[in-house]
């Protein structure tokens, strides 16, 4: 798990789930050390894609597990998630993902 000098890029894709409906792109979080930013945008098709660019290399299996749980919590279609990460822990990643989905779902019931 080294911080060598290339960024690691990961891609995840999910199908199925309920359409998220129209929304204005939203950004949560900040690319600071131990933190990440998450941009959520609508997609024309029904896929749910997640692109990750991170300076903390070698954690692909953990990203995969985090994304699977995110998918379980929010089975959404037509959603594009883009992440710039600077070594955030899985706890912070999951928190930001939930915050981003909350932004586009509008105020809490």
């Amino acid at each position, binding site marked *: 798990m080294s911080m060598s*000098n290339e*960024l690691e890029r990961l891609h995840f894709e999910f199908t199925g789930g309920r359409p998220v409906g129209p929304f204005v*792109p939203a950004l949560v979080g*900040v690319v600071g050390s131990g933190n990440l930013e998450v941009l959520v*945008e609508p997609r024309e098709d029904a896929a749910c894609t997640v692109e990750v660019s991170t300076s903390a290399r070698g954690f692909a299996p953990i990203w995969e597990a985090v994304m699977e749980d995110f998918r379980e919590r929010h089975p959404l279609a037509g959603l594009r998630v883009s992440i710039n990460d*600077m070594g955030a822990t899985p706890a912070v990643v999951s928190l930001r993902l939930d915050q981003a989905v909350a932004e586009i779902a509008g105020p809490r019931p």
Partner: protein
Amino acid sequence: MNASYAECTARQRIERLFDADSFHEWLPPAERLTSPHLAQLGVPCAFDDGVAIGRARLDGKVVFVASQEGEFMGGGVGEVHGAKLVGLLRRAARDRPDAVVLLAESGGVRLHEANAGLIGVSEVMRSVLDARASGVPVLVLIGGKNGCFGGMGIVARCTDTVIMSDIGRLGMSGPEVIEASHGVEEFDSRDRALVWQTTGGKHRFLSGDSDVLVDDDVEAFRAAAIAWLGVQRPAILDSLEAEHRLLSERLHGAPPGADAIAFWRQIGIQRAEQVSELDSEALRELRSDAGLNREPS
């Protein structure tokens, strides 16, 4: 409890400081205008390259705004970041909004983009002066943890009005750089009381380098920005001669060494040794008692 300005991210500051829902962003994150220089260093980009710009309203007035994110690369100015600021200021010179409000939090040049950052910052400085020359007042708000340093510390002093909280800092070289070059006796960067006495909001307000001192509170920053929105410092020969006199008298009159308390006493501030204990309201009284005030005319 108040909403701390220092706690907010750059975007939260815009959201809470300007009129509700009045911010319209230009080149938003979805346009992905990121830095072309960081990937080769293994450093992640930010979708807005660390600065949010756009148009908003402040107490109904039209303002062009920029807010730097201090947590991304220390708020350092890179090629895209600098160009967004230059674009905003050139657009202000063209469209003449009621004012430009810069929420600055930056270490100056983004070292990861050295040359591009340096040229960028000097273009920002030039565009601030151009905007002001076209009749548009430019204000700068400084209250983030990283303060406003390097080239941006110079840009801040090229604006019409500087508004700081006592948590904010304004200067050119950070304490670590000075300690690294001249040793801990020159500047002990771990002594935070000393760091804030040297470049903190209270010192800048008492010395006049900051026109306004507010609490670390978004509402206080908003109120001050509204009060000083239209104020302009004419960049004419007389005003620059006056500035020259002030800075020369300060240089030659200041006590030797770098003792802030002695400096405050010398410019007529009472109870100088208690300054670090006092809140911003008490500081305002101290400054006016010493006859140093510059009210928004």
